[in-house]
């Protein structure tokens, strides 16, 4: 059975494992909540992981252009970009997919072409990782932009420039 066939056949297991790897980045008490609560409004983080991980996986195995899953990736990363993760931890889940897939494959039943197939799968995952980097840095940039804009929008500062306010003196 080719790798692709296996990836399709075992998709439920792989998605489940991938999802738990991602959920595993949260403290245990939080994981329980993220898994248990099915209401998307009560649990936006857990439900976003649930929905978007499978979206990304399907695009990967269907050889779809990753542009189609940008929004799936973005939804997950936008959240992680403001949570307690350093950048490498925020995006670790993409790289974890490689080992998850490898440990799910039955190598005995794969023909000789497997090396090439596996390589091109790795390339696809690397591509996904690069996209994730772009999205992550876009999110962080957006945050800084918002900070700067907020300061500028505070018309209070405009007034200060016009000497229309008095602050408590130093």
């Amino acid at each position, binding site marked *: 059975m080719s790798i692709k066939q296996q990836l399709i056949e075992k998709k439920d297991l792989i998605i489940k*494992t991938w999802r*738990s*790897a991602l959920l*595993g*980045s*949260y*403290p*245990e*008490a*939080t*994981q329980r*909540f*993220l898994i248990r*609560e099915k*209401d*998307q*409004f*009560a*649990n*936006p*983080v857990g439900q976003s992981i649930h929905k978007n991980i499978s979206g990304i996986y399907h695009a990967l195995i269907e050889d779809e252009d990753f542009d189609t899953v940008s929004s799936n990736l973005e939804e997950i990363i*936008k*959240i992680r970009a*403001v*949570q*307690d993760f*350093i950048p*490498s*931890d925020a995006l*670790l889940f993409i*790289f*974890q997919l*490689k*080992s*998850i897939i490898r*440990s799910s494959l039955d190598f005995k039943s794969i023909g000789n072409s497997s090396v090439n197939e596996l390589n091109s799968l790795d390339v696809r995952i690397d591509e996904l990782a690069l996209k994730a980097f772009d999205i992550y840095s876009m*999110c962080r940039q*957006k*945050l800084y932009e*918002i*900070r700067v*804009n*907020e*300061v500028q*929008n*505070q*018309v*209070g500062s405009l*007034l200060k420039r016009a000497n*229309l*306010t*008095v*602050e*408590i*003196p*130093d």
Partner: protein
Amino acid sequence: MADTPKPEKTARINHIPPLMKGWMDTPVEIKPGIYCYGAKPKNTKAVGMPYPKEWNPTDDDWQLPENWKDIIDEGLRDRRDKYRSMKLFMDICVRCGACADKCHFFIGSGDPKNMPVLRAELFRSVYRKKFTLGGKIFGKFAGARDLDEDVLKEWWYYLYQCTECRRCSIFCPYGIDTAEVTILGRELTNLVGLNIDWIAGPVANCNRTGNHLGIQPHAYIDMLDFFVDEIEDITGLRMEPDINRKGAEILFVTPSGDVFADPGTFTAMGYLMLFHYLKSLGLDITWSTYASEGGNFGFFTSHEMAKRLNAKMYSEAERLGVKWILGGECGHMWRVINQYMDTFNGPPDFMEEPVSPITGTKFKNANATKLVHIVEFTADLMKHNKLKLDKSRNDHLKVTFHDSCNTARAMGFLEEPRYVLNNVCNNFYEMPPNTIREQTFCCGSGSGLNAGENMEVRMRGGLPRANAVKYVHEKFGVNMLSCICAIDRAVLPNSMDYWVPGVDVCGLHELVANALVFEGEKKRTLDLRAEYLPGMEDEEDV
């Protein structure tokens, strides 16, 4: 920066998280993006807050007074004796966990210490050690611990990650209100000089100049004049607001954010237009450049400070000799008025029972404080058909409504804003039921946490609200998030910018004024934002 992940890390499949070995063993780390800057001594000094100092929360040394433990000890004792609620909230929690996943900060951050039960437990553990027999004898086994500097830092870090929104309280079978625990906890940290500048600055300004931004009276008037010009461009009519007029029947007080920051300014224009419209019907109202702040950041430091700032608007009412006060669209202003004012500074006997001069409606509910919320006032006008409205002028907007925590949960103010909205626009879509009304999600930046340096925590806290907006944005094409709170108007645009681009934020009275049809106005082609009204895109604006 942490180390680059090693291959073993990336290869980890069944990632087993470090088990929460009990929250007490997880030390606090003060992280950038989460904490707010320490208060500048000039601001704390200006209002006599204790122990003013230059301090940075990331420093190891927080320059605590030598006897800080005694101060907190006494503060805790004092509050336990003064507030029955505190004693109750400390004693009766059974740690059932019903509140645990209801806090927007927990939902958005995934940090268990943001579960309301744990947030209160940070505090309760110390209380237990001091005041309960079990805590004294069994210590940690009974969930009790001593207060030390690390514990104090942990308190501080998490007390300023709670917006005092009270969402958790409605899910607690005992009605335990963690917001109150936060309020008292913040008071204690203030006793030893641990304030944040985003709160202390506005408090000092308000105490001196009358509003959070430190706007002087002439600048306030300049801004109102500016609005008058803008409104004239749009309607052809010149508003003539009264300012500081003695003998007026009603004093109008609104958060200064409405006058000085977009998009609140459009709401302020809305007030001006409504008052002008009602003048010929008998409205006798004045603005004040001294009571130029409806909000009360004092409430985020201590009850004492809230009382001081609250008193200012009442002295102005007395000075001007008005009969009652009309209040603008604000959130925590109403929490303070509705829940605390009467005990703080009441009863304001120099005023009279508020009666609408247009409809004759008596606002008996506001009799204790003599302060009526403008949305209630406007809803009453609509109910009596006193306003000529053209809803279609808001047809370019698909509107949803964010219940502000304070007006919804602290006032039960649920129908009035919806009634107003339904009268002024044709496209109103509710967000899902578990995100509105009593169960509304906080904007994520309330209770003085709308600083710039803590943007990450604000975005985390804003996620549940934004997520519900995203839903109606995608499903119905909602492009306007309306609200009746000045903090909401200041912070939700940022939250939308990050989570749901394409959705703007407005106050209710901006929409009211868009729809309001004036006698003698020019053909309206623009809304209050000077954007074309539906179908008017080809019109020359003359």
